[in-house]
């Protein structure tokens, strides 16, 4: 069954039509990259899945956005609970002004978990999952700001994973990182996809090629092409996609 799906999705910021009739289905345990020039709607599309667009005033949505077969925009959906199903990672590493430990524990605490032992165990396994444990195990009580940018970003991924979502949404997760940190995060994405469904927005086409199984190319709010990454990058069906990925655009 498809993990994520959107049917006839239209999205408006005020009067501007940001997403036009987007139909897309994403399988579980795959990495899907959303590519396209700035302002093409790829970030907006990503944010539909944890209803982050709700926070912006004067927006409107038609169509269905579906996670695990449930339309998450239907009436009676608890948004706080919904957001627990998805973890989000942002462009710039943004750890909270707390200790390394507390950053990862945050999601558990705000959801009312108080069992100290449980929290400790979960924090440890999660930090190990993002391959950060050896680097931070001796300074869990120190501020998260003491870590390097790349470490901070992996910590933020751990923070998102601690509440065990099934979907991880990444909005240009490596655009502020150096190449070494970038490749570490990319490696992590490969490992995580066995457990999570990952959707990643990226400006870096090579990154999309390297990390994703499927690629969706957005342009001016339209989904131009969606397909297996290998095919998109060797022989795209649509000429506009080819022009974009080869850099012959506009």
């Amino acid at each position, binding site marked *: 069954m498809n993990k994520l799906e959107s049917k006839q999705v239209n999205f408006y910021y005020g009067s501007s039509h940001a997403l036009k009739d987007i139909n897309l289905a994403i399988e579980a345990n795959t990495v899907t990259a959303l590519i396209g020039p700035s302002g093409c709607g790829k970030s907006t599309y990503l944010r539909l899945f944890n209803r982050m667009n709700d926070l912006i005033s004067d927006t409107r949505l038609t169509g269905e956005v579906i996670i695990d077969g449930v339309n998450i925009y239907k009436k009676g959906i608890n948004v706080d609970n919904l957001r627990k199903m998805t973890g989000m990672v942002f462009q710039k590493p943004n750890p909270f002004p707390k200790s390394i430990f507390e950053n990862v524990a945050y999601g558990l605490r705000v959801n009312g978990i108080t069992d100290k032992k449980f929290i400790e165990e979960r924090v440890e396994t999660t930090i190990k999952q993002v391959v950060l444990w050896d680097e931070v195990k001796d300074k869990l009580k120190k501020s998260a700001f003491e870590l390097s940018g790349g470490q901070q970003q992996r910590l933020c991924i751990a923070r998102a994973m601690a509440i065990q979502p099934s979907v991880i949404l990444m909005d240009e997760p490596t655009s502020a990182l150096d190449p070494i940190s970038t490749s570490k995060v990319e*490696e992590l994405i*490969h490992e995580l996809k066995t457990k999570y469904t990952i959707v990643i927005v990226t400006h870096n086409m090579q990154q999309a*090629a*390297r990390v994703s199984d499927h690629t969706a190319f957005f342009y001016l709010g339209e989904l131009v092409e969606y397909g297996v990454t*290998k095919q998109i*990058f*060797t022989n795209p069906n649509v000429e506009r996609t080819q022009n974009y990925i080869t850099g012959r655009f506009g």
Partner: protein
Amino acid sequence: MNHFESELEGLKKDFIKMWELVALQLKSSLNALASMDHEKAQQIIITEMEVNDLDLKISKNCENIIALYNPVAVDLRFVLALIKINTYLEKVGDIASKISKFVIKSGDPFYNDLINKTQTLAMFEEACDLLYDVMEAFKTNDAQKARDIFKRDEFINEINKTAFISIINSIKENPDNIEKYLKVIALNRRVEKAGDMSKLIAEEIIFYIEAKVIRHRGK
């Protein structure tokens, strides 16, 4: 091992599978030729399909790796070398199946005598060994071993040349069988070609390991 390395590793695995298959094809065609065994020859023609499939698969994978991972330096040379070696191997596979076709068509003891006389089998054996040895050089990234191939290919060329002259002389003595003689010349040339392929492969291995281009440079 990171994701890209494991992709390369997978490619290499497929590739060695293809190589072993082709080497086996060549070896079997040698055996088929030595014993003029039609059944064995038939088998080789059938497995040729498998080689062709692997060839397509490896070409596609090489294309994907270049498109998706933008390999550089040694990785780039590795993939580029693979693409070329793949073509050479496919040709070796063709040679094996063509020799097999020769075996099937020819039921004449005349050929046996001529083949023995021109040392075709000795040449053929050396060509098989070359293919195995150059595969070993590839597996172990051994440039020196690859260099040794060049000398041994000379030996094959030498035999072929001698065989050619001796056949020409035979034709002069016995012009009635000219068609059969020409067929053996073609056979010998095919075997010699298989040896050449090993030499070309060796050049690619040296290119990939040492980043040196040695073709068109004499010896």
